[in-house]
């Protein structure tokens, strides 16, 4: 017991082996509890907040124009152009079911008649007007897919309808037996004074983007810029340097990218992916260019809402919507979400309320049309600070995949023109082939 200086062995054991250890443990826990940082929410930007949607069904008044409805129309594209240059804007139409490009001529203010311009173009899906020959007359550039629904055969063609000045057109097939063509635009890419072409080819499993160098005498030489399937639109504008026209393209299928082909002014292009989604089902559906923030540089308006997928009926996805890519110069772009729009297609920039700020309008091609609350025409109103509020302009007609804008009545107020593409059920009475949407009030 001599060694039992202070504590009995048992107590000591507890004291040495238990007491201080327990004390230390409690102290440790206390320290740990005291020192553990309060969890903080990470500094991550929130995902798009839900927007309040305004119903604005009386803002525009629809007027059906052109030929009457037969069956289930497949209007793949509409464009507003004063084709005969009589001061009255007209409407160009790609009717993919009847394989024709038509001209809905505004004969007198508010009166329209539809005239077929070409009746043997397999699945025309995009038409643009451009003076290809320097004649002062507007020729038509037509993208022909060959067949609308999935087909990987080389059945696409690039067609120009040459205008004799009296709206009689001569057809020039500039390229055929190529992957299905979805867009054709004209610009002088190499500075030789001749209008060249930018061509988007969706194909299906294989596709391309090419530019076609105009050699004169309706001879063109193709230069392939990209070998990917899924291009929907190619747009042309000086995106970097005001002296050179570049090409911007949206590529869908599994790629889901926006490419900028920067032109050095002599037709040498450098490809850059300026935005892309890692979601192969992102469903890109179209782009257009407009200077949304009025900084002198064209920005990219962009929709994703293509509804086709591995189901019997297409339908919306939570990521569908409308966005813009802000052009920051030097080929750099910043993505901004504008808003949710299920089945979104055909984004256009237009100052719909005449307040000096460019708004964005888009349509829905692939909404859930069994739901009467599914929207088909939406105006994203710009508050002037690039804040956008969705206004529902229409729930009906449904299945819209194309919209264009123009001052059809000369009032300075834009009207919209829409086209329906009835690709899937329900086929109900909410049908309309081509419609002009006039502003109901011009105040």
């Amino acid at each position, binding site marked *: 017991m001599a060694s039992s200086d202070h504590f009995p062995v048992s107590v000591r054991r507890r004291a040495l082996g238990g007491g201080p250890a327990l004390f230390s443990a409690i102290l440790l826990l206390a320290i740990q509890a005291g020192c553990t940082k309060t969890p903080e929410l990470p500094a991550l930007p929130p995902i798009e907040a839900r927007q309040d949607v305004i119903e604005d069904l009386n803002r525009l008044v629809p007027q059906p124009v052109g030929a009457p409805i037969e069956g289930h129309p497949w209007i793949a594209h509409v464009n507003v152009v004063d084709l005969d240059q009589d001061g009255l804007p007209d409407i160009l139409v790609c009717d993919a079911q009847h394989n024709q490009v038509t001209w809905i001529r505004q004969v007198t203010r508010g009166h329209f008649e539809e005239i077929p311009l070409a009746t043997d173009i397999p699945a025309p899906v995009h038409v643009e007007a451009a003076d290809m020959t320097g004649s002062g007359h507007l020729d038509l550039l037509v993208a022909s897919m060959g067949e609308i629904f999935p*087909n990987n055969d080389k059945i696409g063609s690039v067609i120009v309808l040459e205008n004799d000045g009296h709206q009689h057109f001569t057809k020039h097939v500039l390229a055929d037996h190529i992957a299905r063509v979805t867009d054709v635009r004209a610009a002088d890419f190499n500075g030789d004074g001749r209008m060249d072409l930018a061509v988007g080819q969706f194909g299906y499993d294989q596709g391309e983007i090419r530019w076609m160098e105009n050699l004169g005498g309706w001879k063109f030489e193709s230069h392939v810029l990209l070998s990917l399937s899924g291009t929907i639109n190619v747009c042309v504008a000086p995106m970097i340097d005001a002296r050179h026209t570049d090409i911007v393209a949206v590529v869908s299928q599994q790629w889901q990218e926006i490419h900028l082909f920067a032109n050095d002014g002599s037709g040498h292009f450098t490809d850059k992916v300026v935005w892309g989604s890692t979601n192969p089902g992102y469903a890109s559906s179209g782009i257009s260019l407009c200077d949304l923030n009025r900084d002198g540089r064209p920005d990219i308006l962009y929709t994703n809402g293509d509804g086709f997928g591995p189901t019997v009926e297409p339908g919306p996805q939570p990521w569908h919507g409308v966005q813009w890519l802000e052009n920051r110069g030097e080929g750099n772009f910043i993505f901004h979400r504008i808003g949710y729009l299920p089945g979104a297609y055909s984004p256009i920039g237009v100052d719909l309320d005449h307040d000096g700020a460019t708004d964005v309008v888009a349509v829905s091609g692939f909404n859930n049309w069994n739901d009467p609350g599914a929207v088909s025409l939406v105006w994203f109103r710009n508050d002037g600070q690039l804040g956008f509020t969705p206004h529902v302009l229409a729930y009906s007609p449904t299945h819209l995949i194309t919209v264009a804008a123009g001052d059809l009545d000369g009032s300075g107020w834009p009207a919209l023109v829409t086209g329906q593409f009835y690709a899937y059920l329900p086929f109900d009475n909410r049908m309309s082939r081509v419609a002009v949407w006039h502003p109901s009030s011009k105040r």
Partner: protein
Amino acid sequence: MKRTTLALGGALIAAAVVTVALHWRRANERTQVATASLPAPPEFRGFPSELEARVRQCEADVRAGRNGTGPLGELARLYQANGFFPEAAKCARGLIALEPANPHWPYQLAAMSADAGRLEDALRLWQRAAILAPSYLPIQLRIGDALFKLDRRDEAAATYTRVLAAEADNPYALLGLARIDLAAGRWPEARQRLEAAAAHSGGAIGGDLLVSVYEHLGDTDQAAQLRGKAKSSGAYFEIPDPWAAELYAYCYDDHRLTIQSGLALQAGDTQRALQLLERALLVAPDSMQANFQLGLLERQLGDNARARQCFEACTRNAPEFSEGWVNLAEMLRTQGDPVAAERVLGEGLLHCPESPALHLLRAQRLAAAQEWDGAVAEYQKVIQLRPEEAGPFLALAKIYFTLGRTDRAVEYLRRSLASEPEFPPALATLALYSIETGDETGARNWMQHVREQVRIPREQRQALVGRYRERFGREPW
């Protein structure tokens, strides 16, 4: 000694009290963080009530501090799986704060950030998840893809290379590297990688790009061979991703579930496709899409009884959906009950009088019974309703050939080409017809199309060339 013991005891009690208090405070703070991460509940219009009930229960559990982060995690998953991304993202942000070592939360939030167009945010989150779960390859692949899309190709290449170090034949990493090669104009290198990617994915990954590469490198035979396999393949399937797949156990949206099922089927995962459809029918028993898709799948798997149930459900719940009737009638016919098949066909036409598919079925029946007038009328109706399809034109051509009215037959063959410009059976038949009628100019023209249409089987093409040679004594091209 007693005083020392007492002091020590007191200190222990004090320390315990402090510890409990601090832990309580910490738990309280965590509950506060979790509660602050609760989004305002959205509108659940169109969803089964069970979803809203689960959401409410989770919210209550979060507020009460019950079960740790479990309820907030469940809520995040419920929201994300049902397409409520802003709400899911808010929960996920809270979870990242509360469970900083759990890779699932940054991974989930990354996917939503990417879908909201914020690829740089997504990349940062994926990189965070990758540190926490370095062996989960889908994260690395998504990082590689994000870097590529952000035009950071060197970093993307390094990432894909790391994936290949872990899994030498990963087709997605090979595809990523091939795309970088293509962007740099390194076609032979791209070819090598794409061939490997296609070989390890049954042709689904990289096979499409490979055709363009073959064509660019002048290997037209290889390209034609691949192109000839299908009118349209669309074989690509998404990166297999068990973490993302788990989410669908929380999904109450039958449309999203059927889409996922279709994607699983594309990827060859029949079992998962079935599970997803079963869930779709659990949450929406009357779902036309889910019933129809399950019917097709069960028929493919040989469970005709189940398939029939599904198609019957389609016709009952969505009588205006013609494909339900078509498939039910087809099933009954193949099961040896032509009377019932005919009855279903008639019933379907009553509900869907303008259905091209039902009229086509009737046309086929009549043609099989050699009731030519009726068959012709039905095929013409199909053409009127669906002029974009080449098949009915061909069927009419066959009938007219049978009836000896070759002029009409040829007319319909030509018309089929307006619907599908390089329709293989029409090209081959027109070529043969021109050869047999001694029209060498016509034959030469059609043979040129035959030569270029890679979907016409080689043997058939050779037979046509042989026949041309016999008839005209020279080669067609």
